[in-house]
């Protein structure tokens, strides 16, 4: 059991021991880093490829169709076929585009989303880089992607791209605020920004003492998840690339592998944010019986599946509704969640639960009443002429 739990850690150890026989000692730390990097560099694109497969398959099932099933059994080789297609496609750069920026944007969008993987605790002792400020690093790096998206939209010299880029900027900056606010609660309770420490703080109760089971943790989790769906531009928050309105938004003018890189960033982002949500609120790799990395994978998969499910179900918000949702609802909710977490920390157990629940319930009801778009909705009755 213990060995299964530490499978990948042991693998790395074996590689390092093997290398010890012929490498000089000062080079070993570098090799250790290199092994981790290689693992991530293989794991991340593979995840992305099979997430596209999963999304097409799941949405296909939701829509009474099969999804890809021609290449390989269950279409399992479809991502590879897609990759080949993408690589062999013509790369079109529009006339009058800013060529350098146009080329740099897809690169700049993928690198941060790969970097995100370095601080994720994939299992016990399985964080590639155990930074003291892992969480801060995650948030800081993930927001670089916004800039890359704007680069792409601006450099394309296309009005749809520009509109999409402007939307992306407005949206991602607005949603970063409640995202950070929801994370603050965890940092307050744990007292550390290290992702390892955050997971360790959720140990106990046979591995089920997750933050999501506390009132502030639940609200924080919801806020974090909603904001992360928005941060990776997925339905119902996919206005930057809303295909029915602005064709494809910021990546309208990208083709071939460059387009695939934008797509890759989106899927890697979706995976990384889901993994982070699992780390922060669902106990990371904590869980009974199963090996730690399997628990982590399962939790992440569930969240990714929810994102796909949302995509298969919901229509899209409008720009102004999206903004007012972030600033008028999520933002104040995040603030009151911080208050609730503070009270939770400083009062003894039964009282803390009651206080925190009441604060959150009251603010939820109050905010949803105050929300002007909420009150305008009406259930209508229709008259009939004979």
């Amino acid at each position, binding site marked *: 059991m213990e060995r299964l739990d530490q499978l990948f850690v042991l693998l790395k150890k074996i590689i390092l021991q093997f290398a010890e026989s012929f490498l000089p000692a000062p080079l070993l730390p570098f090799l250790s880093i290199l092994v981790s990097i290689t693992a991530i560099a293989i794991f991340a694109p593979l995840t992305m490829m099979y997430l596209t497969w999963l999304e097409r398959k799941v949405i296909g099932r939701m829509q009474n*169709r099969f999804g890809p099933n021609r290449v390989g059994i269950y279409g399992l080789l479809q991502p590879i076929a897609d990759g080949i297609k993408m690589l062999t496609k013509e790369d079109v750069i529009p006339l009058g585009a800013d060529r350098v920026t146009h080329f740099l944007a897809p690169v700049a969008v993928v690198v941060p989303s790969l970097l995100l993987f370095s601080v994720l605790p994939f299992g016990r002792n399985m964080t590639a880089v155990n930074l003291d400020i892992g969480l801060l690093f995650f948030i800081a790096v993930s927001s670089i992607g916004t800039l890359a998206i704007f680069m792409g939209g601006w450099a394309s010299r296309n*009005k749809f791209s520009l509109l999409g880029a402007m939307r992306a900027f407005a949206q991602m900056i607005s949603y970063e605020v409640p995202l950070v606010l929801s994370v603050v609660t965890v940092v307050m309770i744990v007292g550390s920004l290290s992702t390892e420490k955050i997971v360790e703080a959720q140990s106990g109760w046979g591995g089920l003492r997750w933050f999501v089971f506390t009132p502030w943790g639940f609200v924080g989790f919801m806020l974090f998840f909603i904001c992360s769906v928005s941060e990776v531009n997925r339905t119902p928050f996919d206005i930057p690339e809303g295909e029915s*309105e602005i*064709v494809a938004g910021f990546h309208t003018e990208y083709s071939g592998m460059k387009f695939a890189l934008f797509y890759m960033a989106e899927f890697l982002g979706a995976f990384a944010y889901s993994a982070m949500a699992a780390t922060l609120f669902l106990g990371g790799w904590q869980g009974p019986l199963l090996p730690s990395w399997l628990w982590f994978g399962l939790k992440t998969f569930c969240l990714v599946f929810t994102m796909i499910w949302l995509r298969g179900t*919901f229509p*899209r*918000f*409008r720009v102004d509704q999206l903004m007012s949702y972030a600033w008028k609802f999520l933002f104040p909710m995040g603030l009151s969640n911080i208050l609730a977490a503070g009270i939770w920390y400083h009062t003894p157990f039964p009282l803390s639960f009651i206080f925190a629940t009441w604060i959150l319930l009251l603010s939820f009801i109050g905010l949803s009443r105050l929300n002007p778009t909420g009150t305008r909705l009406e259930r*209508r009755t229709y008259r*009939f002429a004979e």
Partner: protein
Amino acid sequence: MFVIWLLVISRTEMDKPETTLDTQMLEVNIGPQHPSTHGVFRMNVTLDGETVVRLKPAMGYLHRNHEKIAEGASYLASMPFTDRLDYICSMTNNLAYAIAVEKLAGIEVPERAQYIRVIMAELTRLVNHTLLVGFLLNDLGAFFTPTLYAFREREKILDLFEATSGARMMCNYMRFGGVKADLHPGFMEKLKEIVENYPRFLDEFEKLLTENEILMSRCQHVGILPKHLAVDASATGPLLRASGVDYDIRKVDGYSIYPRFKFRVPLGSVGDVYDRYYVRILEMRESIKILEQAMKEIPPGEFISKQGATGAKSPRTFRPPKGDAYGRIESPKGELGFYLVSDGTPNPYRYHVRPPSFINLTILEDMCLGCKVADAIIILGSVDIVLGEVDR
């Protein structure tokens, strides 16, 4: 004291000009190649940020000289061309043209043919409205799920069309004085199945959509078309009825045998996109009622009159007397009319189509001004256009 000071501050803040930046309007061509213009339609939109300040529809990308071609062909030869007008509802196009020619030549239609025509027309209405709701949701940003649910149901009806007329979309089924062929033997059982299952599908569809908060907040109070404006622009069909005007040609004109059926006309109150969506759902439910009644009452007998049958066999001998006629029906999109002038030759002297989508489209700008780009798209979707009919 503090409050007053705050008020004063906020007033002075408000009086300031909003910005000193040099801002420009953004002119965007939405279309002719665009995922949600429902064909090759172009909207020349001027945007202030995201808000639409001017919208000029540009049509004609699909112009096929339909009317002039019809003037050079015999009356019957235009029948298959009418399929291509509104290619989603070919049956109703056929019906409107057949009614116009029958008026012109004074041809009687046997009882059974009338029932068959009503059944086909109402099935077409189901097809059209189901598809429209699906595509409207696509315009709203749903990832094809409602559309594919709609396609699943549409497929069943198209199978029926195929079995009856030989074609799924370009049916070419109506003839002057009746229909091309009688219903095939298994038709009634299949129709019964559809009629029984359709309400269940609609319930499921509505559960997904009608009270969905995103759909409500996107559609309600968006693209309002006031009553008087709708009437002034001679809008017809669900677009007009969603604005609360009681005008259904099946009731007003009572063409074919519609007065025999009991059905109601749903009317909207606000005239926004949501009303247009919901009026269509309710209309489908009424169509199912008509189908139920028609299924029970359909008599045996001839499916085409003698005169019509000879006319269908040798179209060049079909010479309506001199004169003109205007035949109109309530097609799923609105009033579809054919105006024909005969000079006694086998070809019509003048052949004019009154396309509902084209005329409904003329008020697009009035509905879209002040809305966001995303709203303009769903308003266009809720008008329900087919470019084959708009451009002809």
